């Protein structure tokens, strides 16, 4: 085998305001191997790959391809140098054809500088045939199933003739058969001496396909190991690293009567959640686990009235609520902190004070139905102080705060509505370790006050460390509810991959 590495990343350091995302990380990948990159969410895998792909610029460190040093200014540059990447989220143009998507930004031109559609379609066809992907180049990519679109992205990554291909959770939306097909493609790449970096949380996949595995934790590289010398347990302990319980505050809450009850809730979309039932009690944190695509967010949004339901019942405090809307949900004491803080959380150009009070304006009207600005502000200050939001002034625009502080403002917003049940969808996503712990403390205090929390989380330790019970979804169906004593990574994973 060739002795030079296909890729060497040495001493990569990357700091974001307030967070050291990567700390002297070194990764070496041999050509013709599949190299698994593992670690909890937030360990720095994605940041490392974004540095490799030129999306982020590392502060320090060297990237070498086949022994030659490179510095990528952007992803276009990386692609030209033979590094391609399949992102976790689809990044295609749904209204254009498969071929147009594959050749986006590098369309073949004819003599007079117009796009040569025939050549583009022919090349796409032979590429797809070569990979045994059964799709016509002319079809609109948006009309394909999500998993087929994902397969096309894989074909696109391959089509750059890259020497390094990064796959970031490529199987999160694939079925079992499709995963087998993907593995075939990966094996073919391996034969062609391509280095594949494979990011996945699914242990079985790692053991099936990978040759080597590197484990990251808290922005540091723990080590690189031969997969043959690894076991499931060993890998998990490397990833988690330390005693999982120490990272979560102690809280003593009394679990009381049922506050929210959901019966046989089904989405009008057959691929989304179906026939889900559960209860949350006063003083309880119910964790919702599952993989990407398990429809957890969709279920939560339906309960909060953002999404439609086909059938099923929602009871708050024993009363059935029909035609749920966010307004009704708030009136009945439900609050929801959404997963997508930028997209559906913050009002970027409003100040902290207004961002906090926006969901409770009704409570601050005088006799003339005009807003009581002074009281609104005082209350906003009170909540943000209690949550220790760090901001220069209350008039600072929320877009100028760090992610963790934005999240605290949004938690303040919902606490101000005095909810009984708080739905928190990925409450600590994109937040540094210190702020995370503070948010866990807030959650503990809330349940100690007798409120109920439903927490959707993709971070295993968070689910296990914070929840009284964990309900696991897989492909939109509830595959089980685990009590505190049964909450282990393995049990959750087993339920989360039940239909895969």
């Amino acid at each position, binding site marked *: 085998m060739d002795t030079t590495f296909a890729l060497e990343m040495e001493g990569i350091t990357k700091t974001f305001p307030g967070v050291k995302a990567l700390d002297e990380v070194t990764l070496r990948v041999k050509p013709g191997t599949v190299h698994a990159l593992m670690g909890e969410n937030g360990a720095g895998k994605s940041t490392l790959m974004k540095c490799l792909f030129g999306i982020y610029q590392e502060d320090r460190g060297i990237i070498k391809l086949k022994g030659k040093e490179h510095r990528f200014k952007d992803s276009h540059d990386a692609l030209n140098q033979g590094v391609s990447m399949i992102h976790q989220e689809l990044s295609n143009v749904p209204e254009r054809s498969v071929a147009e998507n594959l050749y986006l930004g590098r369309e073949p031109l004819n003599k007079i500088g117009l796009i040569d559609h025939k050549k583009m379609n022919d090349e796409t066809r032979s590429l797809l045939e070569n990979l045994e992907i059964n799709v016509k180049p002319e079809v609109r990519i948006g009309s394909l199933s999500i998993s087929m679109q994902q397969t096309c992205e894989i074909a696109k990554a391959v089509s750059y003739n890259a020497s390094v291909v990064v796959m970031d959770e490529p199987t999160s939306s694939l079925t079992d058969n499709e995963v087998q097909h993907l593995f075939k493609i990966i094996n073919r790449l391996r034969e062609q001496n391509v280095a594949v970096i494979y990011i996945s949380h699914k242990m079985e996949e790692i053991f099936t396909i990978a040759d080597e595995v590197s484990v990251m934790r808290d922005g540091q590289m723990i080590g690189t190991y031969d997969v043959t010398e690894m076991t499931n347990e060993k890998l998990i302990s490397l990833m988690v690293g330390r005693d999982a319980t120490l990272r979560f505050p102690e809280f003593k809450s009394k679990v009381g009567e049922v506050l929210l009850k959901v019966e046989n809730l089904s989405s009008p979309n057959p691929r989304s959640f179906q026939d889900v039932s559960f209860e949350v009690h006063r003083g309880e944190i119910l964790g919702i686990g599952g993989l990407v695509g398990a429809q957890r967010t969709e279920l939560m949004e339906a309960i*909060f009235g*953002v999404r439609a339901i086909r059938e099923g019942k929602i009871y708050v405090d024993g009363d059935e609520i029909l035609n749920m*809307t*966010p*307004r009704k*949900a*708030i*009136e009945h004491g439900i609050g*929801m902190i*959404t997963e997508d803080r930028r*997209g*559906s*959380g*913050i*009002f*970027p*150009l*409003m100040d902290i004070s*207004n961002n906090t009070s*926006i*969901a409770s*304006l*009704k409570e601050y*009207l005088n006799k003339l*139905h*005009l*807003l009581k*600005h002074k009281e609104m502000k005082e209350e906003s200050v009170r909540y943000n102080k209690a949550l220790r939001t760090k901001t220069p002034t209350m008039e600072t625009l929320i*877009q100028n705060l760090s992610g963790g502080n934005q999240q605290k403002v949004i938690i303040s*917003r919902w606490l101000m509505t005095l909810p009984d049940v708080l739905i928190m969808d990925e409450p600590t996503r994109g937040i540094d370790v210190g702020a995370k712990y503070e948010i866990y403390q807030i959650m503990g205090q809330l349940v100690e006050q007798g409120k109920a929390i439903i927490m959707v989380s993709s971070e295993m330790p968070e689910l296990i460390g914070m929840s009284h019970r964990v309900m696991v979804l897989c492909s939109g169906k509830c595959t089980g509810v685990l009590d505190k004593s049964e909450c282990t990574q393995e049990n959750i994973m087993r339920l989360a991959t039940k239909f895969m």
Partner: protein
Amino acid sequence: MEMKKLLKDSKKVATQYTTWVTFVGLLLLLSILTNGQALRWGSIRNLLIAESVRSFAALGVGMIIITKGIDLSIGYVVCLTASVAASFAQNPDYSSAVYAGQSFPLIIPIVAAVAAGGLFGLFNGYLIAYGKLPPFIATLGSMSIAKGLQLIYTKAAVVGSLNQNFKNISQGSVGPVPNLIIYVAIAAFIVWILLKHTRQGTHFYAIGGNAQAARVSGINVERDLMMVYFYAGLLYGTAGTLLASRLGLANSLTANGMELDAIAAVTVGGVSQNGGVGKVSGMMVGVFTMGLINYGMSFLGVDSYYQQLVKGFIIIIAVYFDMKKYARRA
């Protein structure tokens, strides 16, 4: 060191209060160029009167732009409402009156015009909020509909010979202050209360800033969106009434192009095209800034062709700085 800080502070003030700085700067420039001639009360008064009708349109579209919408129908809706108002205020002995031989109490033209404006607002608002049409397209359609209705209603004729009572609505004054200026002040005050001191006004900013977050926060996005177009429609109806009263007639050319003037004015006044940002004070200053530019150039004898050119550049520069100011961090 002191100097540096002063410079930095003044720079900060300048970016924060671009609108005011521009306005005061123009005022100073004009007074220097004309040795103070252009800024006598008489001239200022004329400027205020000339811009008053546009102020109503600007207040309406200003609110709409705060919700991240746009309204292209303003010009023809004002034209239609002016024609409606005029048709109910013609002298009964005028032989080619729309309702020849009939006379109506003074309240009728006002109510009819404001109602017509409100109906158009509801129509636009319904299409945009519930029909999910892009505001640009919905109001482009209703612009043509308004024009068509105006032509049908007036049979493309001038609606003239208006009675004196109706003309007095806009042509009178209270002491030295013309009626029109009082109306503008009242309208601006009401819109200020709405935007600054009511739930719905706060919701407008929220919807323009992040509609999805607004929905999750329990805001009835559809209803509020429909209402903003409705309120704007009422303001256009008022503008139409006052315009007919001031001109003493209405025809198919009345208020043509007012949408562009109004949109330009509020943009210069700091209402962001990205939604979620804007103040009544800014809208008003924007209107008078644009008015000042027109008036100043006329006063200095600049050819009207060039005025058009200068106006175009000012709009582009204003939006350019607006986009830079609120550009999302990558």
